[in-house]
């Protein structure tokens, strides 16, 4: 069948026409596509280029190495350690449980730590969360080899804080830890570093107080990231600035000895250099290992520390407040002497008590001390003498003298939770208690009881000031980044030298004269002797019934009701170099519980090593030799006796 040629040619023309129309439509639409390309790629190119760069470039902060803390002899107290850890990004893991099960087959994982990490991963699925740290090199290698089977798991190397001397520095240096919500809310510190995972921030102690010095400045790393957040390559880095190194005034060997010497007690001890205020040792016992806190302490470990009745978490050096007891008597006596209300040789009659406004105030010695002058009052610690002085001088003079000697003032060394202590006066009682001052309050205050509260650091400062006649201010930081910090001594005390000499003579007698309360704790190291004052402060009221029975031996009481034992002292007595204060909580009498500790520590400071047995009184030498040899001091800090003598 042939087609009609005319019809065919008509059809052909129609197709041509329609083809041209279609071609025109296609060209028009292509024009639209070109216009769109032009709009996106030429007109808006800059905007989209920026978006693309934002997509791919992420700035990662580089945590600077934290400044190292040294003791005064250059020994590292807080350093940085390379650690191997394993972290996980939840989003990258296909099956979190499966991955963790496999990981558990490779290395030991702390269950509690793991549960915490899993909870954290639920909150931050995009961020790396540490599952375990302080892995051994073998463990890290095992994980690294198996990484293909462990999606989301990254073995890594990082820096972590380490305290090589452990518990000796729990209270002085404190510890660092993970940045908490509260740290982030601190408006004065909005460093972006805090947002970086695994960043450590000073939590307490010098670590916290010197945070701005130790932290350093963040560096940054510009990295290219893919859509899944994986880092593909590094585009450039700006180096940060390491934290500055800090040198403390602490002597690690003395600190260690003191810590060991106080072991088992709930006690504290401060040793200062009276010539410049350097804190050579500051120990609060019991302590804990700050390393436990760095990677997060476990709940049972923390509960054990929290519930211990000896309060290891408490920094007794500056936080512990105790009635100073008889160690306060120098203050009362100086107040009266300085005001000219008593002459040094003037005597007061002590029958064993003093009756003031119908109330009987007892001396610790029931039979009384008889005639008591200034020196004897301190030597034998006669309370009645001070009751008399309190009446003469008045509380305001006593309080003023106490402050002059550094009590009732927060000494701002680089520790946290520093207490002011309390030196009461009329104004204080009126404002804070809404009551008038009564004479009984003065009498109690005169022997360091009643409202008076002091910290071991304050007692040490007082002793240093008495010993040197200078306004000594404690100093914990010796230098920062090699720059020496100002000395802790500003000017001489505003107290006549003759009065201070009198005090020092009396304190010398406390230890070295017949009848002195600290007589058992005397020493003689090639002519070097010391001076001091004992204190025993009540933590309870002695009832009339107890007094009548005459039975209130400390040993018969439960521990927490026994008296606090205190001692302050300095050496050498004729050219003071070191001051010391010791407080043993519920230790009983100051002469029995505190003074021997102070003596051993002082001898260590003076000799620069284990106390020489020859310095002890002849009768104690055998016993002391045995005792000192039994002390578990760190052999790296205190060389064994044989070597030190050689």
């Amino acid at each position, binding site marked *: 069948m042939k087609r009609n040629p005319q019809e065919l040619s008509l059809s052909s023309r129609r*197709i041509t026409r329609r083809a041209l129309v279609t071609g025109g439509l296609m060209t028009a639409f292509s024009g639209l596509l070109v216009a769109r*390309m032009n709009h996106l*790629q030429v007109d808006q190119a800059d905007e989209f280029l920026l978006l693309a*760069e934002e997509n791919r470039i992420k700035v990662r902060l580089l945590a600077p190495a934290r400044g190292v803390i040294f003791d005064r002899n250059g020994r590292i107290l807080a350093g940085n350690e390379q650690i191997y850890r394993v972290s996980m990004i939840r989003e990258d893991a296909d099956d979190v449980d499966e991955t963790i099960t496999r990981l558990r087959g490779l290395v030991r994982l702390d269950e509690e730590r793991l549960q915490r990490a899993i909870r954290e991963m639920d909150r931050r699925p995009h961020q790396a969360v540490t599952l375990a740290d302080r892995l051994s090199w073998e463990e890290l290698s095992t994980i690294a080899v198996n990484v293909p089977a462990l999606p989301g798991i990254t073995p890594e190397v990082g820096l972590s804080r380490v305290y090589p001397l452990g518990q000796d520095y729990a209270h002085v240096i404190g510890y660092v830890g993970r940045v908490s919500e509260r740290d982030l809310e601190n408006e004065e510190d909005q460093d972006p570093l805090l947002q970086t995972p695994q960043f450590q921030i000073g939590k307490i102690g010098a670590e916290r107080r010197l945070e701005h010095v130790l932290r350093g400045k963040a560096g940054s790393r510009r990295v290219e990231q893919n859509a899944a957040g994986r880092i593909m390559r590094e585009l450039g880095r700006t180096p940060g600035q390491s934290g500055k190194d800090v040198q403390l005034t602490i002597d690690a060997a003395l600190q260690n000895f003191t810590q060991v010497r106080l072991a088992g007690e709930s006690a504290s001890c401060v040793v200062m250099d009276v010539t410049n205020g350097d804190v050579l040792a500051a120990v609060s016992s019991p302590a804990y290992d700050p390393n436990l806190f760095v990677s997060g302490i476990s709940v049972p470990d923390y509960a054990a520390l929290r519930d211990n009745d000896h309060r290891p978490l408490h920094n007794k050096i500056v936080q512990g407040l105790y009635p100073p007891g008889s160690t306060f008597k120098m203050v009362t006596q100086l107040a009266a002497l300085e005001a000219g209300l008593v002459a040094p040789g003037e005597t007061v009659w002590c029958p064993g008590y003093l009756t003031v406004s119908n109330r009987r105030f007892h001396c610790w010695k029931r039979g009384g001390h008889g005639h008591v002058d200034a020196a004897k009052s301190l030597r034998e610690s006669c309370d009645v003498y001070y009751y008399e002085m309190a009446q003469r001088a008045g509380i305001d003079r006593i309080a003023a003298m106490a402050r002059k000697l550094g009590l009732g003032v927060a000494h701002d060394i680089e520790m946290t939770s520093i207490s002011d202590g309390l030196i009461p006066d009329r104004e204080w009682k009126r404002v804070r208690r809404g009551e008038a001052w009564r004479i009984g309050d003065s009498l109690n205050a005169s022997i360091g009881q009643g409202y008076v509260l002091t910290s071991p650091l304050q007692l040490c400062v007082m002793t240093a000031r008495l010993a040197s006649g200078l306004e000594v201010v404690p100093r914990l930081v010796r230098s920062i980044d090699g720059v020496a910090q100002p000395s802790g001594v500003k000017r001489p005390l505003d107290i006549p030298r003759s009065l201070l000499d009198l005090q020092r003579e009396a304190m010398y007698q406390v230890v070295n004269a017949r009848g002195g309360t600290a007589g058992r704790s005397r020493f003689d190291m090639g002519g070097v002797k010391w001076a001091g004052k004992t204190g025993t402060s009540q933590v309870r009221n002695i009832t009339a019934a107890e007094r009548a029975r005459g039975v209130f031996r400390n040993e018969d009481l439960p521990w927490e009701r026994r008296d606090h034992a205190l001692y302050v002292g300095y050496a050498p007595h004729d050219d003071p170099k070191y001051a010391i204060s010791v407080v043993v909580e519920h230790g009983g009498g100051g002469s029995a519980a505190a003074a021997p500790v102070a003596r051993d520590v002082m001898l260590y400071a003076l000799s620069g090593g284990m106390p020489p047995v020859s310095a002890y009184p002849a009768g104690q030498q055998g016993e002391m030799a045995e005792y000192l040899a039994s002390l578990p001091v760190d052999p790296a800090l205190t060389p064994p006796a044989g070597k030190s003598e050689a």
Partner: protein
Amino acid sequence: MSYLEYNVARVPQGLQKVLALNWALVLLITATACIGFVVLYSVSGGDWRWAEPQMQRFAMGLAVMFIVAMIPIWFWRNVSALLYAMTLALLLAVELVGVTGGGAQRWIDLGFMRLQPSELMKVTLVMMLAAYYDWLPPSKVSRPQWVLLPILIILLPVFLVLKQPDLGTSILLLAGGGAVMFLAGVHWAYFATVIAGAVGLVTAVLQSRGTDWQILQDYQYRRIDTFLDPDSDPLGAGYHITQSKIALGSGGWTGKGFMQGTQARLNFLPEKHTDFIFTTLAEEWGFVGALSLLVLYLLIIAFCIASALRNKDRYASLVTLGIAVAFFLFFAVNMSMVMGLAPVVGVPLPLVSYGGSAMLVLMLAFGVVQSAHVHRPRAAGEGRLLRR
């Protein structure tokens, strides 16, 4: 209907057919495919894992094209209806034995390759309609009963593909089929009616959402939402289109350079080697590169149209024009989609996107175009060179 309509005597024979091929078209197609290889190599981060299989497929496609081109166009006309019927049967088979992949049933596993009947339908539908209008006397073209038949021919596969569900392909089939009807000379009024009807349908589709008689799937509605306002959900459903626009736009005038496209290399782009490959090209080669590809495409179409218009045979010109329009629709829809002008419907970029079915079917179509070119009726004196 008869072979006699063709001036068989003047058609080249044997190896002469090779010389009679539309070599300009072959070169243009090869150039476009080469652009694809370069982009695939780049998008895989300097790796042959996509470029190499794609080159093998293209080589196979070229072979298919040459074989199809050697077979006379009247053979293709005569088997058009049969091919259409077979493809339709395959589409039905997909419904029954199809392997689920990509969330939709689209493939039949033939062992050596996965056949996508909907891809094949893009070509066989055009061939079927061309054959239909070749058979239909031109005077009857606009009569209602003769208009209804091709509409059924189109809607049958469209319905099956839509059921898979594959919105992109069904739109291409509908538009491609409609284009052939338009080219064949169906009256303007029908198209006006259909367009009016389409507007009504779109309204109905949008209105039906959330009701019992909801027409489209939920994911298709979400794609429409995303298209209308991609920024409303930049990390969710709008992520694709937002990232695609960023990639395109950041290319700028001359692009970031070969292998320097950060959006693709860092996996910000979805389907970077298939549906969204144009964005990588535009990111790395910029406006210049994107425009070059578009120009290549338009040249291919221009050569097809030129060949069709010179061809006196009705089937040959209709099938050539139909394939040209279908080809245009492929890339126009894909480019509109990645440039944010149309919803994301999952249409690959012809000759460039990674994929076997699409490449082979397209080369098959160009084979038909070549066959039409080679076997075109020649006037007296034409093709003297060939006769010698």
